[in-house]
């Protein structure tokens, strides 16, 4: 069956073997010996992983193994959590992410994030996109309008909402809200997109649309997606990493190309997980 297509030019996902060489295997984010604690409680420990530019990297694993915590440490959203301690090194295109002098506002502009639950602001559809753009210095009305239209077209939402840009964003359906959140992140032209189970709160139809959209972002953005849906990870990812809880803390068990992780994994845990025997 042909998947739902968000935009006409969206490439449908191809089988693993025929996946296009979308991305050069050039690390854009390099994580070394990263550990995260909430107070005394460790979330994950000793994660070393390179995330390639322009690729979709899926992070899979059972609940509570530190996947989301790993994601939020990459844009330093962990700064907002009291008692959260991150150790190790994260380099994003040469930028030392964890260094105290790093400008987090600038970092978060380069690293966008989509959350599990769609969370548009309680403003109009237009204001949801205009607000972050204005905050980052775009004030010219015409350019704002142009950026908003491009953002909404990018996520296939323009035709659905162009006549009601001033109506409340919260009146949109769950799938539309999630696409609006993606547009809100995309209008800031980030280089990396972190996605925390972006489809899990959506119905299958909306989930399909959002999934196609993620595929269409390949090569333009470096995408890191946490997902519980192994079939989805298999469909869309170029690279995959398996997290697992061992001795009460999350660990990176195995990482590699999606072909390797879902086809010929080395680790017994990965074999058991991708075959559906565990997790």
């Amino acid at each position, binding site marked *: 069956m042909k998947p739902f297509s968000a935009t006409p030019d969206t490439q449908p996902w191809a089988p693993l073997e025929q996946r296009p060489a979308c991305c050069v295997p050039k690390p854009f984010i390099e994580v070394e010996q990263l550990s995260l604690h909430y107070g005394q409680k460790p979330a994950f420990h000793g994660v070393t992983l390179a995330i390639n530019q322009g690729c979709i990297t899926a992070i899979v694993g059972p609940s509570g193994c530190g996947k989301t915590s790993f994601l939020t440490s990459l*844009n330093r*959203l962990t700064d*907002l959590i*009291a008692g959260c301690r991150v150790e190790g090194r994260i380099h994003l295109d040469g930028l030392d992410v964890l260094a105290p002098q790093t400008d*987090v*506002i*600038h*970092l*978060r*502009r380069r690293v*966008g*994030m989509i*959350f599990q*639950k769609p*969370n548009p*602001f*309680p*403003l*109009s559809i237009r*204001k949801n996109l205009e*607000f*972050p753009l204005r*905050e*980052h210095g775009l004030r010219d009305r015409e350019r704002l309008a142009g950026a908003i239209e491009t953002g909404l077209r990018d996520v296939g939402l323009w035709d659905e909402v162009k006549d009601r840009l*001033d*109506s*409340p*964003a*919260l*009146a949109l359906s769950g799938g539309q809200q999630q696409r609006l*959140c993606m547009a*809100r*992140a995309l209008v*800031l032209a980030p280089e990396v997109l972190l996605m925390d189970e972006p489809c899990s709160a959506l119905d299958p139809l909306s989930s399909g649309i959002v999934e196609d959209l993620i595929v269409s972002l390949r090569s333009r953005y470096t995408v890191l997606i946490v997902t519980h849906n192994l079939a989805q990870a298999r469909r869309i990812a170029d690279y995959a990493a398996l997290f697992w809880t061992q001795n009460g803390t999350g660990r990176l068990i195995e990482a590699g190309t999606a072909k390797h992780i879902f086809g010929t994994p080395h680790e017994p845990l990965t074999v058991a997980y991708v075959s559906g025997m565990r997790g």
Partner: protein
Amino acid sequence: MLNTLEPHPGGWERLATTFVWSAAALVTATFCWLLGDIIWHGLSHISWAFLTTPPRNAGREGGIGPILVSTLLILGVCLGVAVPLGVGTAVLLAEFTTDTSLFGRLTRRSLDVLSGVPSIVFGLFGNAFFCKTLGLGFSILSGGLTLACMVLPILIRSTEEGFRTVPTGYRLSAAALGLSRTTTLLYLLLPAAVPGLLVGLVLGVGRAIAETAALIFTSGYVDRMPQSLLDSGRALSVHIFDLSMNVSGGDSHAYASALVLIFALLAINGATSWLTKHWLSRRIVTV
């Protein structure tokens, strides 16, 4: 199908239902009786002249013009001081301290204790501090500042609650978009916290406008038209107290003044919620 799930009312349930309904009816009836009594005795005295002319013969005759002006001035001073301080403290408590931090816990505990302090204590404090120590004397300024101290705990706590009910998702997604904390606070959290602020404001204004004990010691008794904030001014509640307790034959005007007080309270509540709705619909668009 649903009917089979509903319990059949037994004796106890009938008794409980009767009790709950009677309790509610009793409360409503008491309020209606009180309001009815005030309207019955007071309405005939209400006129434009009553609202604008000064009282004569210790309030038995004339109107309540200067008293209304004093009351509004006291309320203005109270809100002008309490709202910025209250919102500021609420922001600090809700957004910049954690539930477990010593500072946060101490401040919250102090506010809870303060909100239970009898108004006469605030009155004596206001008299000692504002009237004497700061040398403001019996004045509208002293009265307004004392009332501000009194309503601050309610205002802060309910505004803080307002901030806390804003979903964490807004804060996270705002931070993830690289929005500064100030922008997030001003354009997202503050409008979303307005309902909480409104509840605090209505409760606070209700308490302030009806306050007698704290004002007798601070803003005083003088029923002349105030010329400045440093003049003594008689609040409406003090006027009602004086007419009903100290002035024989002042009952009818006490009733009329009480009616004005109740309507003023209703008008302020109505205006606050209308303003907030109007303001909110511009700032925040919800379904």
